[in-house]
Each structure stands twice: as C-alpha cells, then as structure tokens.
C-alpha cells in the first residue's frame, strides 16, 4: 500500500459523547464523508479517542487497506499525536493523517444552529479530504539536546528546580536578576506552618546549591536574548548593572520561575493617604525589623484589589497570610482586638482549615462583609484609623477606631513580564501571568516544547505548591535532558530544484538561517534547506514567487485543494 497509489481514505467522525453529537448531526457528516471522492470508509463513534475508537481505526486501516485517515473531532493541538500514533501502529505512515476540528471550532461555538453547524462540519470534512488526497508520507527527525538546563528566577521555586536537576546529574544555570537569592521569601517575617523564618528554609537550599558544582548561580544577571529551540537554545545573559561582559550559553531546556510582586493598592481603603494603613508585606517587614508600634486593636481587610476590584482573580494565599499575621499580632498583644473583614476565607485543604480554626480559637474576629458593601477607611480621631464595616449577622454597621489597618492584596505579575514573554515566545494570560499549555493537564508546560513554568510566575500559590511545581518543572526538563535527543516534526521546507532560480527570497525571510544557496539547478544556484534548523513555520513558501519551496504537510497544492474544496461547495 504505497502512498502514490490511488488514495483510499477512511473518515472517522466523533460524537465526543454529546459535545459534538449533541450539537450537530454526526451520523449525517459521516454519511456525507462517504460520498466524497477517494473516501472508501466512513463511520461515526461515540469517543474516537477512546480505546474502542482507536481499535475501529486500526481495524479499518487493515481491512479496508486505507492509505489515508481523517478524524473529525476535537482539536489537533491535544489529540493529533494520539491518532498519528494509532495510524503508525496500524502500519500507516503517521503523516498520511489529517485532523478536522468540528468540536472546539464548530459544535461548541454554534450550539443553537444545528443545521448550519452540520453543514459547516461537512465542509470542514470536505476540506480535510481534499488535503488528505495530497498528503505524502514523512518521517520525524531527531536532534541532539544540550545536556544543560537553565532556570530563570532565583526564588524558592527556581532554587528547588535547580537543585532537583543538579541532583539528577545535569548541569544547571540559575539566573537571578537581584543580587541575592530568595525572591519574595526574603520579605516575609515568618512562614506557616513551620513558623520558621524564611532564612532557615532558604539557607539550607542555598547551601545545597553552592555545594553542588553542577549548579552555576548567576545573580545580578538577566537574559537579554534568546534564539534557537528545544534542545538547543542560544541564550545571551548580561549583568543587570554596569557593563560587565555578557555570557552566551547553549542550554537544552529553560524553566521560567520569575515569581510575582505584591500589588500596591493605591487609592483603596485609604492606602497611601491614611496613616496606619499598610499591606501584608509591609506589616511583615515591620515585624521582621521589630519596629511595629504598640497595637491596641487592628483590622485586616481581605480581597483588597482582588476578585473584581482591580484584578479579576482570587490570589489564593492572601487569606492565609492575613490569618497568620492576625494570629501573630494576637500573640504579641494578647489583649488586642483583631478583626478580619473577609468575603470568603480561602482556607482550602487540611492545614489551612486548621489554621483558620486556630485563629478563631485564639480570639481573632472574622466578620463577613458583602461584596457590594466594602468597609470604609478614613483618618480617625487622635491618630487612629476609623474603619466602618457592616456585620451582616447583627444587621448593622460597626465603627471601629483602630491602630492599624492591614490590606491583604493579591500577587500580580511583574511590570516588565511582557518583554521576557516575547523573548521566550510564550503568551501571557488575561491575568498577565504566564499562560500554560493546558490549564488542567499541562499546567507547568508551555505550548512550545523545552520551556517550562513553575511557581507564582504561573499564578498565585503558596510555598509548598511552588516547590511542587518547581520539582514538576525539573522533571519535565529531565525528560528532555535524560532522553538526550528531541524528536522534531517533519513539517520542514523542501526545494524543487527544477524551478528554483536561487533568488534568495526564502533565505532572507527564514528566521533560523535554515536555508543556504548551493550549486545546481537551472540557474546554477538553488536554495537548500537544513531540516535540523528548519522549524516548519512556512514563511519561505510565502515569499517564493514561483512556489519552488514548499512546506511539507502544508504545501501550496494541499492548501489550494482545501480552498477549492471549500469554494465550490455544492458542485
């Protein structure tokens, strides 16, 4: 069964439970697929991606002697590798496969238009079939991986990741902008639940890193340029101050552990105008430096600037920080009345719920205020701060003059994160934190291979969760480092030497310098593509006036076939 024989296409249309089948006529799409040229087999299945669906594909390939397979279901971004592997298992080259997205880009976005959605699914399948007829078998190539990792950000997350990689036997560069490791933890007074000072946690870690000669700690340094791809990134590092000479590195994987800042809630609850209104970290700084004034009573205001006030998200850790510090004040001043004004206490899990209970037992007051009626803070009499808030249970407003108002504000992404994101070619989410590959199943990966994410750079989380993600990102890096090589998709460019005149347009638009001129062709010089460097973007065929250079898997012929299939609809 060779590819250049006449195409024998099998089309498998997925119900995806009710996600597709519930919103468009899947059987009709399968039946329509059967009528298309070169389609010799078409069926619909409840879950094509499940074992029975894959078994149906394997069975059809063998029994119907298929040399092309099309699956119409969800999105290639998550399921293409699975179906390609299934084709390979059944003896069919994995690139004689075309994916048609009729769920995320059809059934789910046209839920009230059964007929139009079914019609659209049919046309998408027709486009898929048109492309499938012009597919050719391809083979993946492997590229070596630089057995060195790099971690951006020297907080608890970055340090943990670096140690894990080094302990597994690989060299790692830990790059930190500031002059000292530790990140946000340096600004904490005590950490919960161990009640130890952050230094105790950091010192042990820092000692391990310094002792391990596979770890290279580069403080006061930042990345200024990045080229290359998973397995071999070319990184340019520069010292933050002064004009010391830069450092060029070749690394296999990169872990983004750049952390986050505490939001300064200017204009909220009198912050910045009323004396005695501080943020959690400012309180912890006072506690750490021992210059906290005498506290008769204090009020903590949770969710300052969060959940719709300034940012849209809940910052996960400010409730616990608030409660920890409220208990700290109760400890220092047992007679002080400490009240926490909250909307919802995010004391999730076991230890946080226990801390919340211990705070109540210790006498910390918890008063819930409705979202629509936030507390009001203004300068009170004789140096006090007047807080007016509504106690829903008592059903009336309460006015308190306190010595201190502590605002629990959310963690926010660094101001200049956009620059780093662009250098890394990774997106930021709506909440400006780094946007991971899949929120549920690939939380610490980016869409582009070889770059991983951990800690508060991914979003607000506590120390233990940051350490888990740090270890996770280390493991993700180790899968590349220990494998030593990386498989690259064969969707690279190829040159038709008969028609290429060596004009060099393609060379000029190639961002990776993957094309060079060599002797040959009709005009004595032709372009030649180095598959190892070519990352399969397809910009060069876009610049070639004579279609001499093509991108495998996305050739002009295939794209034109899809356009024509779409255009002449009915006929």
């Amino acid at each position, binding site marked *: 069964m060779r590819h250049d024989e006449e195409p024998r296409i099998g089309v498998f249309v997925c119900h*995806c439970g009710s*996600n597709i089948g519930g919103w468009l006529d899947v059987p009709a799409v399968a039946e329509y697929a059967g009528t298309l040229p070169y389609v010799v087999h078409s069926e619909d299945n409840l879950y094509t991606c499940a074992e029975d669906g894959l078994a149906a594909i394997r069975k059809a390939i063998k029994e119907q002697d298929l040399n092309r397979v099309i699956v119409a279901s969800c999105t290639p971004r998550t399921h293409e590798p699975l179906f390609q592997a299934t084709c390979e298992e059944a003896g069919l080259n994995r690139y004689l496969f075309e994916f048609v997205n009729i769920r995320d880009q059809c059934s789910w976005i046209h839920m009230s238009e059964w007929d139009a959605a079914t019609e659209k699914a049919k046309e998408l399948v027709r486009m898929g079939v048109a492309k499938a007829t012009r597919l050719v078998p391809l083979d993946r190539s492997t590229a070596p991986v630089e057995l060195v990792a790099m971690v951006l950000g020297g907080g608890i997350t970055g340090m943990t990741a670096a140690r894990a990689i080094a302990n597994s036997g690989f060299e790692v560069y830990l790059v930190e902008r500031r002059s000292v490791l530790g990140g946000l933890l340096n600004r904490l007074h005590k950490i919960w639940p161990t009640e130890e000072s952050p230094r105790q946690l950091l010192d042990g870690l820092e000692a391990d890193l310094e002792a391990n000669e596979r770890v290279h700690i580069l403080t006061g340094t930042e990345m200024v340029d990045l080229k290359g791809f998973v397995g071999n990134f070319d990184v340019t590092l520069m010292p933050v101050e002064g004009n010391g000479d830069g450092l060029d590195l070749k690394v296999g994987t990169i872990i983004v552990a750049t952390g986050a800042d505490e939001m300064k809630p200017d204009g909220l609850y009198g912050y910045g105008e009323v004396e005695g209104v501080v943020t959690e970290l400012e309180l912890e700084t006072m506690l750490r430096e021992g210059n906290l004034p005498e506290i008769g009573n204090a009020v903590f205001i949770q969710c300052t600037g969060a959940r719709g006030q300034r940012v849209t998200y809940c910052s996960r850790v400010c409730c616990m920080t608030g409660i920890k510090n409220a208990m700290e004040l109760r400890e220092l001043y047992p007679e002080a009345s400490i009240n926490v004004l909250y909307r919802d206490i995010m004391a999730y899990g076991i230890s946080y719920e226990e801390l919340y209970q211990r705070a109540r037992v210790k006498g910390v007051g918890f008063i819930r205020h409705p979202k629509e009626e936030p507390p009001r803070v203004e300068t009170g009499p004789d140096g006090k701060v007047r807080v007016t808030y509504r106690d829903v249970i008592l059903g009336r407003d309460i006015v308190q003059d306190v010595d201190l108002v502590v605002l629990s504000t959310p963690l926010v992404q660094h101001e200049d994160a956009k620059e780093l994101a662009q250098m890394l070619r990774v997106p930021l989410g709506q909440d400006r934190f780094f946007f991971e590959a899949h929120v549920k199943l690939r939380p610490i990966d980016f869409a582009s291979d070889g770059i991983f994410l951990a800690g508060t750079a991914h979003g607000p989380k506590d120390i233990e969760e940051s350490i888990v993600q740090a270890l996770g990102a280390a493991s993700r890096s180790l899968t590349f480092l220990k494998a030593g090589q990386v498989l690259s998709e064969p969707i690279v460019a190829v040159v038709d030497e008969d028609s290429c005149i060596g004009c060099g347009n393609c060379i000029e638009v190639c961002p990776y310098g993957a094309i060079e001129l060599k002797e040959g062709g009709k005009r004595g010089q032709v372009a030649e593509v180095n598959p190892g460097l070519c990352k399969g973007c397809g910009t060069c065929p876009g610049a070639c006036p004579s279609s001499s250079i093509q991108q495998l898997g996305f050739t002009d012929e295939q794209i034109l076939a899809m356009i024509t299939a779409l255009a002449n609809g009915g006929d």
Partner: protein
Amino acid sequence: MTKDESVLIIGGGIAGFQAALDLAAAGVQVHMVEKSPSIGGRMAQLDKTFPTNDCSICILAPKMIETYGHKNINVRTYAEVQKVSGSIGDFQVEILQKARFVYEDKCTGCGACMEKCPKKVSSEYEMGLADRRAIYFPFAQAVPRVATIDKDACIHFKTGKCLLCVKECQAGAIDHKMEDEVITVNVGAIIVATGFDVYLPYEMEEYGYGRYENVVTAMEFERIINAAGPTHGHMQRLSEDKGRPKRLAFIQCVGARDVRHDRPYCSAVCCMHSTKEAMLAREHHSDTDSWIFYTDMRAFGKGFWEYIERGERDYGINYIRGKPGEIIEDPETKDLILYYTDRETREVRALEVEMVILATALIPRADAPEVAQILGIEMDEYNFFKAPNVMMSTDTTREGVYMAGYCQKPMDIPDAVAQGSATAARAMEAMAQNPKGGTSQKEVTA
C-alpha cells in the same frame, strides 16, 4: 545510568499517569499497578472538568492510551501491591496479580460475553446508579479494553455451572481456572497515587441521603449528566417518575469542615465542581435553575473566580451563603423542600427543588491504612499519607517512597498533575543519589 533505573507507581489516575509518562520519557522503566480492572482513576468518572469545561474523558483518554502503550511503562490492572521490602534505590515489591479469568492478550474487547452473562451487580464506576454484569468492563473507554470476571458475583464460582460467557466468546479468552499470581519487581523508588473515595452522608439524617431518592452526591450527578452514564446524559431524577429536574439545589461542605464527623478539613474542589455541574445543567436545558448553598465560596485556583462569576452572570446560578438546616421530601411528588436562612432578611425560607446534589467530603481510600502499612509509611489523623516535611509534600515518611495527588491532601487536577511530575523528579533524584549497587552520587554532591 538510566538503563537499570525503575520505579513502581501505585494507582492509575491522572497523577500516576503524569509521573509515569515523565519517568518513561526520561528512559526510566515504570511498573504501574492499578487495583481496578481499568486505569483512568476518578477523572474517568467525571463528565467535564473545571474551569475550562473540557470533556473529562476527552483529555484523559490520550494519557490513558499513551501510558498503557508506552514501551517503558508496564501497566498491571486488577492487581495490588502485597509486600514491599528494601530501601531507597533498591526496593523489592511483591505484586498480587488477581486472576481476571480472561486472557489479556486474547480478549478483543468485543463485549459479547457481557450481553449473555445473567448475573447483574451494582456498578462501582456508576456509583451504584446502574448495574454491570459479573463479567464486565468498568466503563466503555476502559484501558485495557479487556473483560474481567468478578469472582464474588460470578454464578459459576458458586454453583459450578453457567459458563454462558465462555460459550459466547469467539476469542476463547475466558478461563475460569486462572489463578492469582504474585510477581516481584525490583525498583529504585515508589510513587503512591491512589486518589480518593467519596463520603456517602447516610449518617446526616437531616439531608435524607439514602432515604430520599432525589438526593444524590456530586459524583452520582456527574454520572447522571455524563453521555456515557447510566442515563445516557439525560438529566433525570432517580425517583421512578424519572422526570427532568428543572430546579436543582447544591449543598456544599456535606460531611466536610465537619467536626461532628471528625472531618474538619475542606475538600478544596467541591465549590468548583458544584458550579460546573450547575453550568452543565443549564447547558443541558436552558430552563434549569440552580441554587448553591455555601459557607465560603472557595474558588482560589487559576481562572477559578472568573469561572464562578461567569456561572452567576451567564448561567444564572443563585449563590446563597448559608447551609440548609434540613431537607424534607414531599411524599407524592418526591420533590424536596430545603429550609435555609436568607442572610439579608434573616428569614428562614423554604426552597422547593426537584433534585438536591450534596457536595460531600472527599476522603482517603478505604484501604489507605493497608496500603500505608504495606509501604511502611505513616498517615495523618484523617488517613491521608503524611508528609513529615510540610514543605516537601511529595516525600512520605519513608525514604524513597513518594506520593502524588489526592491521597496526600485535597487538591484539584492541575495540582495533582504538577505533583505527579514532582514525584517523578524526586524519584529520579533518589535513583541518581542511590544507584543500585553503583557508587553513590552522594559523595560527589555532599
């Protein structure tokens, strides 16, 4: 160094998959042991997952298949770990491969035997809402798609007769004389990722679970709205009218944050999955109204709070702070009346709904104590596996044994996945530091 490295993973859920796939990609040999006949874990029972409302099986199936098919991962289903000895870098593990009375390599998964088998028992996968036969797959997308005979249910093992399934099976894959066997494997590290059970609130009489048919747990509701579930995705009541419930009430923290039933902890995911289920109910039928009764609306993860606000804004979910005091069933209509306090007017109100979904506590597996005893690791007072160093939540009390997912503490799927990868890193570190017999890396880095 990597050639003879191997790791045992107990539990074939999403955390186990991530650990297994990371280790396998890094060239480590993985032995995965799963107690039930198919891998997939709890996530396989879910209809959708928050906050993206992705179809759960759709994002899980690829992981199941990739894990089962991976050359470096040896998956044993319907098997349990019996004994563990040795220490970090060099554990000897005895695995009991329970007889499933079906030859894995012969069975094609056609399912013909199941039609013929006369014996029906309640299906654990369907949370008891539907039956399965004595010979069965736990669910349609099971991996491996191999039948299994439940010895306690099968008539043959009682009367010596029947064997209808054997007659039906063209592949000749069924053999009632198969026996349990014990396999020993030698591994450098062990990862336990056994997940959780769902607390069934029979003892909370005020909510009438077990007495009123239309009071269900959240996992049961997930099965009801699942297209592959007992009702084929039709949202319907369990009372024999099988009517479509237009008004749903969700009660949070049932048996959780509950000192009276000595379970003071918060299960971390219920506020989210109740909102999800209310959204899906509205998606199934646009005239469905939902009320969620909560104490703290705990949506703290990435994109979670925006999800809750979308639930309120776009799906019309009514969020009411305050737990209902009790539920009374109207004997004729089987509808349910909830008594709750309206926080603003402070009146006690009665809300009449057609179905109540209890977001019950999620608790460690019933056999967690045995697993802990076999592994020689300690548990905390609620039977979660204990992390001696709170900051290193992957490490159990025994060196070389790591843990991931809900068996360690309440967490959602992304945290379980991250911890899956984390235990893979810890295992690789452990094996690098304690190679079997080789020179310890320790001196180099000490």
